[in-house]
Structure formats: structure tokens, C-alpha cells
């Protein structure tokens, strides 16, 4: 098997060839221009990642701005023996996931008081009234995957981070990330195939619900993170 294709978490440097560690050190000594270099170096990559989660350009931009502000405020807490990139992305991804969780909690109960509707539509069943293009279809299926798997899938398959980088970003063991990645792809595949077949089969939704449930019961993630 060939080496996995990855985009590095370390961004290509605008603002000279100064290392991240050097720039962080300068920021700690009050050099704001060094922080500007760091921001310009990472903003494109960070924005791209946050946009995958937020799916709204303005929101992703606000979250990226907030991420950099937090990084500036906590720059003294950064461990210089580690890499700056994963630390930055960890703050950004956590901030975004927290925001989305809070928004979901706020919006769902108020819009859909009826408990039958709180689960939302079944992502495995295509709504024939919706004429979604391929991208929208994929996004919809992604939304049907639990957050901890979806996060790994987005970072690996959409943002091309390596599994060791994802481990550093999510602060998990690499074995856990690989486990979640396999699980995420299997879940995505199952939902995707069901959704695709439901679009071509006239009797939508009669295939039964046992697919993902059966799959879920077969695959319990080993609790490796508790060991950390």
C-alpha cells in the first residue's frame, strides 16, 4: 500500500522563513509583527478547516478570528517543545465544535418542540422533494455520522491531515484516530449506499433500519482514550 497522501499541518510560510517556534518566542516578547506573520501563515488553512465544520463562510471567518485571538491570549501557555500548528488547529476545532453544539442545543428545541422531529430526517433516506447536487448529498450524509467520527473523517478525507496530525489536533492516541477513521468510513459508506439506493428504488425507506444499527452494535470503540 502506498504512503498516505497528506497535507501538512505546517503551513507554507508567508512572512519569511522564520520558524513558528521563533515567531512564537518573539510574540511572547511583545512583537506583534511576529504574530501577524503567524496569522497570515495559518489563516488560509485554518479557515479551510473551520469552513468544513461550519459550512458558512462568514461564521468560519469569525471563528478563525476568535481562534487567533485566543491563541494570542494563551501564547504563554504554549509548550515550545511541541509544534505550533496542531495547537492552533486544536483551539480552532474545539472552538468551532463547541459553538456548533451550543447552536444546535439552542435551535432544535425552539424550532421543533415535537420530540418525534428532534432526531431530524434519516440521512440514509433521500427526500424525493429535494433536488440536491452531489456535494449537498455528501454533506447531508456526513451530518448523519456522530461528531467524533465525522471530525476525524473531515480532517483526514476532506482536509488531508495525516492520522498523527489528527491525533495531535484532537489530543488522542494515533491508534484511536485510526479506529475512528475506519469506523467513520464504514458508517459513511453504509449511509451513502443506502441513500443512493433509496433514490433509485421506488419504495423509499422500505429497506429497513437495521443497517446502521446492526453495524453500530458490531463496532464498539475500544476505550483507549481513557488510558491517556
Amino acid at each position, binding site marked *: 500500500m502506498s504512503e498516505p497522501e497528506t497535507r501538512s499541518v505546517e503551513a507554507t510560510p508567508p512572512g519569511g522563513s522564520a520558524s513558528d517556534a521563533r515567531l512564537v518566542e518573539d510574540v511572547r516578547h511583545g512583537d*506583534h509583527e511576529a504574530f501577524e506573520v503567524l496569522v497570515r501563515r495559518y*489563516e488560509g488553512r485554518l479557515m479551510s478547516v473551520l469552513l468544513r465544520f461550519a459550512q458558512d463562510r462568514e461564521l468560519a471567518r469569525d471563528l478563525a*478570528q476568535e481562534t*487567533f485571538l485566543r491563541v494570542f491570549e494563551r501564547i504563554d501557555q504554549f509548550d515550545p517543545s511541541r509544534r505550533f500548528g496542531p495547537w492552533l488547529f486544536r483551539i480552532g476545532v474545539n472552538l468551532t465544535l463547541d459553538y456548533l453544539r451550543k447552536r444546535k442545543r439552542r435551535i432544535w428545541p425552539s424550532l421543533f418542540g415535537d420530540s418525534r422531529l428532534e432526531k431530524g430526517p434519516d440521512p440514509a433516506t433521500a427526500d424525493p422533494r429535494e433536488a440536491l447536487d452531489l456535494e449537498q448529498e455528501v454533506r447531508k450524509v456526513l451530518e448523519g455520522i456522530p461528531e467524533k467520527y465525522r471530525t476525524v473523517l473531515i480532517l483526514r478525507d476532506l482536509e488531508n491531515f495525516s492520522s498523527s496530525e489528527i491525533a495531535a489536533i484532537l489530543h488522542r492516541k494515533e491508534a484511536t484516530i485510526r479506529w475512528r477513521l*475506519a469506523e467513520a*468510513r464504514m458508517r459513511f459508506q453504509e449511509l*451513502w449506499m443506502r441513500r443512493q439506493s433509496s433514490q433509485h428504488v421506488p419504495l423509499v425507506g422500505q429497506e429497513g433500519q437495521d443497517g446502521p444499527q446492526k453495524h453500530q452494535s458490531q463496532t464498539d470503540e475500544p476505550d483507549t482514550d481513557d488510558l491517556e
Partner: protein
Amino acid sequence: MIWNNQCRKTQRLLALATGNDLLESETAGMQRHLAGCPRCRDVQDGLQQSQRALEGLRLATVAEGPGAWSVWPGVARQIRSLLGISAAPGWHQWLPTGTLAAACVAMIAILLATGVPSDGKLSAGSVPVSSRHIQSISRNQPRSIPGYYPYFVQVPADPDNYRNF
């Protein structure tokens, strides 16, 4: 049961393999199982299809790009305001300190205006005393000095009463 476990394990490896995440050491066992298991080959086809769909989404968004903008102006503004608060506080932040200072100045001014006798002798009136002393002086109908209560004693009208101290 062994067949099921083997399939489950292989499908997990297949899921990793579709994104080139499989280790060299894991490949051989997977290939051996695939050769004899049509069900796992079907799963492999499905995984490859769904992986292509994900790849399509990735390429579509990469082509779109994050946009020609920078968050730096906004970040810089927030940092300036963050540091501005601690480096050069606005006038309203001096309000409590200013009020306290003004009150102190006013108090000193009052003391100077009313508490100092014209001959400048403050010795009797400026002696700090306990409440027992104040009571004993009160019984002797003291002459009060405005501005010194409760920190400074009221001076007895009769100089003989100093013996009570």
C-alpha cells in the same frame, strides 16, 4: 463466528485502505481474506464508491478556495483593544480613584479650616482617646470641636478635668 470476526476485521482494514491509511504489515492478511470472501469484496466496492463521493466534495471545495481575505485586520483590532485596556485606561477607569482622592482632599481641607485653633495649639484636641474617656468628658459638659469626632477627643471646658485622663 470466526468467519464473522475475520470479515469485521478485514472490513475495518478495507476502510483504512480506501484512503491509503493501511500499514504495509496489515495488507497481506487483508488480501488473503479478500480472495476468498465475496461479501468483503462487495464491501470494498462500496467503500471505494463512497470514498469517491468524499473526494468529489474535497475537490469541489478546494477549487472554491477559502477566499481572498485576511482575518489579520480584525485580529489586530481586537488585540489593540485588548492591550489598550491594560496599557492606557480611559478616563472612566480613573473615576473611583479620583473620587477617593477628591474626598481625601476635601476632608483635609475641612480639617484645616475648622479644626486648627488660631493659636495653632492642637495638643488638647488632637489626643486620641477611648470611649471611656469620651464618656467621662461628656459628664463634665465638654466643649466640642467640630470635625474631630470620633477620632479626636472633645476638649473639656474645665482644665481641671484633664486629671480624669
